[in-house]
């Protein structure tokens, strides 16, 4: 199998899969079997690509076609995209398994539409990851937006539709209103949109205008949720939890920060940015977002809302890393894409599991649940630590490199900011765990049992300690795996570093 | 100031007064009559400006057909205009702006009657010079109309054809069949009947003359068609629509409408057979002039046919409606 075929398959598998899923609408088991198989196949294909990308020789590339003279639809592998591709396709497997448990346990409607859109979304995420030029990336970026809209508005309640409207409004508004202009500007100025090491802007756009162009890009990439364009993220919380997991950990937000990173490294070129200082302003916007979001997160009692704002703040880390325009910063930011993905998906899986088992959404109601749901809470703790950035969790690496990057850029204030925000992370994540384990549920026996039964979790024959009432296995297994993933990423952080390192190597 | 100029001014002033009266009056019957007057006066003006063919047509159309149609419409709708309620400010502004723009535009115009004006020296002279040799008929207007710019005239026939079809589409549904038709003859006007009987013959003859004499004098298919139709309309008015319909049934008229256009368009295709371009009549005869002559004759006939048929069918469509206003109310 040649590299080109592998690339073609990486798009073909999910999109073909979505069709098959639609065809299997009649039979739930078959439909979900197809989903998982597609996910596994895709991951296998991506791993294959990884092996070829890391091997010596030219990087895999595929030219699909030319839309307008000079504007091509093309795919190519480079380290950053490779990493994002692996995250998206890998976590999709777990997410699918989790979805099966969650959607069934909560008797959600229109599950076929859900799985179809899910497949399309992952497909376009992979497209974003492997895009060889900004034009291709933009196209998949938009498909991703459209295909996730039905997922956000899945419940079809007035609230869900309002959330969907905000979601679509902000994302399409920014992407068409700002990003497209930026892209066409780049096209008119440079005559190319190919991602090129060292960037294409240098010398083509008046230096004074570079910050403007940069602003059009970073704010145009609404999926990066840089304030003030972060509103869509909390709004999208109305979606079913697996969707939130997809949006906040796997596909959407990561596609956002990934695109930011891509633009910084391959359109502007970090050396050019560093030389002109055009991205300094962005450091402060990112830092502000980072702190503000953390503070807002603390005020939220709704677990998913809190996690949402935590995401906004974590994304800012990545943007910050890019804005530092030092190789360490870029590497740290890029690694944080992976680290945060693993940590945050764990947290969302847990939130979903708690909801499935007890139908509780407000943190203040969750006293004592830790003892009822030890696995879930254990996983939550691990995920939280990773997000905070404490060893031995993957998150520690990315924050460490971010610090180094800030140091390289002589941005001592930024280092301070990172410190503070880590403390804030502790403040809004750990109390949740504390409540879970060290307070007693006011209604320990009785409450929540029916749902638990409905959710099909068998009470373990109790020996003095209250019976365990976990969410269904389909929910618990994935979250344990992702939690484990956080630790694995810590151990293999170095491998990740080596994968990414070429993109900043001069 | 020459007598010519004085006539010119007088006619224009009269036109202006008529137009203003039309604007002001609210009795629609008077308005329609005045618009007929307006057409007649402008026809006179056109004669004065050497445009005899146009004058002829304007008189036949403006004072003839249009007036008949408008009266028919009034009979079917209402005869009084309500006072305008909306503010007239905006229309006034628009109109004044337009008017001033035009006046501004006149300033660089060649003066009236200037023989050195661009239009007198560029394209037109060829028509005047070569009509005799190329077409071989004295009436240059007919030559240009039917041959040099014959395609415009084909378009013109198509326009009138469109109107005929359109009126049928809009009103046909509401035409009552002859039996249902209230017979409105004018038996009580003996004189009128006699006069009409006497008149119709000569009118038809005149129509034929105008039709086939167009090469030599003013006139042509269009005018002839209208005259022919008006003869028919007079007949219908006096002896009743029912009898008219018996003489020429609606369906037949409809087909005649189409035939005229077909004839014109078809003649155009003949030239293909001789490898010439569309509407090149030269191939029709032994030599160019003969061919042009025949071609013009044919297409003019096509025009006449369609025009007459359209006028008649339009008249049927209007006159066939149920008038809410009885004849007595007039």
């Amino acid at each position, binding site marked *: 199998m040649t590299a080109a075929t592998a690339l073609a398959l990486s798009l073909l598998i999910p999109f073909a899969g979505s069709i098959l899923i639609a065809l299997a609408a009649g039979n739930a088991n078959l439909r979900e079997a197809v989903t998982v198989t597609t996910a596994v196949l895709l991951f296998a294909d991506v791993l294959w690509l990884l092996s070829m990308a890391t091997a010596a020789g030219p990087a895999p590339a595929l030219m699909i076609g030319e839309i307008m003279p000079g504007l091509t639809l093309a795919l190519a592998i480079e380290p950053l995209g490779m990493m994002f591709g692996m995250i998206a396709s890998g976590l999709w497997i777990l997410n699918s398994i989790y979805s099966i448990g969650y959607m069934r346990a909560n008797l959600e409607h229109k599950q076929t539409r859900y799985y179809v859109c899910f497949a399309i979304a992952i497909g376009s995420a992979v497209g974003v990851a492997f895009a060889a030029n900004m034009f291709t990336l933009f196209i998949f970026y938009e498909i991703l937006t459209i295909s996730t809209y039905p997922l956000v508005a899945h419940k079809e309640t007035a609230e869900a539709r309002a959330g969907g409207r905000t979601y679509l409004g902000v994302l399409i508004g920014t992407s068409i209103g700002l990003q497209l202009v930026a892209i066409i500007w780049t096209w008119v100025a440079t005559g190319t949109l190919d991602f090129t090491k060292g960037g294409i802007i240098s010398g083509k756009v008046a230096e004074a205008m570079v910050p403007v162009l940069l602003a059009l890009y970073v704010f145009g990439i609404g999926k990066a949720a840089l304030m003030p364009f972060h509103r869509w993220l909390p709004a999208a919380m109305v979606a079913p939890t697996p969707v939130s997991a997809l949006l906040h950990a796997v596909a959407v937000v990561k596609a956002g920060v990934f695109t930011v990173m891509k633009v910084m490294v391959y359109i502007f070129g970090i050396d050019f940015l560093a030389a002109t200082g055009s991205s300094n302003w962005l450091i402060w916007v990112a830092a502000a977002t980072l702190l503000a979001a953390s503070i807002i997160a603390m005020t939220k009692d709704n677990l998913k809302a809190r996690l949402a704002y935590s995401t906004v703040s974590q994304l800012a880390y990545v943007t910050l890393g890019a804005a530092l325009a030092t190789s360490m910063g870029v590497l740290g930011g890029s690694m944080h894409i992976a680290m945060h993905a693993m940590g945050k998906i764990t947290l969302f899986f847990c939130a979903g599991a708690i909801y499935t088992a007890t139908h509780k959404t407000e943190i203040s109601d969750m006293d004592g649940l830790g003892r009822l749901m030890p696995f879930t809470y254990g996983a939550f703790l691990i995920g939280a630590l990773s997000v905070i950035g404490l060893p031995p969790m993957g998150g520690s690496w990315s924050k460490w490199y971010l610090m180094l990057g800030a140091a390289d850029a002589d941005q001592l204030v930024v280092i301070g900011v990172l410190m503070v925000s880590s403390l804030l992370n502790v403040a809004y994540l750990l109390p949740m765990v504390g409540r879970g384990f060290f307070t007693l549920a006011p209604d320990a026996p009785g409450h929540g049992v029916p749902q638990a039964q409905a959710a099909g979790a068998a009470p373990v024959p109790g020996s003095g300690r209250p019976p365990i009432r976990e969410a269904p296995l389909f929910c618990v297994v994935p979250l344990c795996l992702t939690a484990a993933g956080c630790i694995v990423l810590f151990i293999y952080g170095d491998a990740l570093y080596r994968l990414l390192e070429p993109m900043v190597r001069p | 100031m020459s007598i010519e100029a004085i006539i010119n001014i007088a006619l224009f*002033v009269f036109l*202006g007064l008529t137009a203003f009266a039309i604007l002001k009056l609210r009795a*629609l019957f008077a308005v329609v009559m005045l618009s007929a007057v307006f057409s007649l006066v402008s026809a006179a003006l056109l004669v004065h400006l050497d*445009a005899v063919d146009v004058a002829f047509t304007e008189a036949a159309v403006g004072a003839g057909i249009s007036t008949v149609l408008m009266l028919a419409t009034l009979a079917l709708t*209402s005869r009084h205009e309500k006072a305008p309620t909306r503010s*007239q400010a905006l229309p006034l502004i628009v109109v004044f702006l*337009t008017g001033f723009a035009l006046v501004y535009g006149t300033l660089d115009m060649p003066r009236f009657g200037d023989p050195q004006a661009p239009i007198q020296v560029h394209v037109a002279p060829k028509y005047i010079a070569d009509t005799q040799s190329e077409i071989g008929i*004295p009436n240059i207007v007919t030559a240009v109309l039917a041959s040099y710019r014959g395609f415009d005239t084909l378009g013109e026939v198509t326009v009138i054809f469109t109107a005929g079809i359109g009126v049928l589409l*809009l009103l046909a549904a509401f035409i009552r069949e002859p039996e249902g038709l209230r017979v409105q003859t004018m038996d009580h006007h003996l004189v009128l009947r006699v006069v009409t009987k006497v008149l119709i013959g000569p009118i038809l003859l005149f129509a034929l003359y105008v039709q086939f004499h167009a090469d030599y004098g003013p006139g042509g298919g269009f005018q002839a068609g209208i005259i022919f139709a008006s003869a028919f309309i007079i007949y219908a008015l006096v002896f009743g629509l029912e009898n008219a319909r018996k003489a020429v049934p609606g369906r037949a008229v409809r087909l005649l409408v189409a035939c005229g256009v077909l004839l014109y368009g078809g003649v155009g295709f003949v030239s293909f057979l001789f490898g010439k371009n569309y509407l090149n009549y030269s191939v029709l005869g032994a030599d160019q002039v003969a061919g042009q002559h025949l071609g013009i004759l044919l297409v003019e006939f096509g025009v006449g046919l369609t025009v007459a048929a359209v006028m008649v069918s339009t008249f049927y469509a209007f006159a066939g409606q149920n008038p809410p206003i009885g004849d007595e109310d007039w």
Partner: protein
Amino acid sequence: MGVSDILGLFNYWMVIILMMIGFYTVVSRGNLVKKIVGLNIFQTSVFLLYISMGKVSGGTAPILTGKPEVYSNPLPHVLILTAIVVGVATTALGLALVVRIKNAYDTIEEDEIQAADDETEFGDPQAAEDHRR
């Protein structure tokens, strides 16, 4: 600008005045028949514009007489013959529409028609139903 200019442009100015009266009748009057009459005046004045520009002083009607003469320009005549036909065609269609409107609305005054339509659109659903046939 001297007398010659004024005389030389008089026709055009008069034509413009006529045009504007016709134009004003169209845009300012609410009666549908009156509008059509206005259109007629508007168009007829355009005919006069064309014919005026074709006139050559001392010229005669462009019908060859054999002996050398000055002829007025025949081309505008041809164009206007076509234009007249277009005019009458428009009139016929317009009037036919007026008749239909009268049947449908029982009025030919713009304001009353507008009122009826507004009722159809925003008025009581009953009225809306009536016209949804």
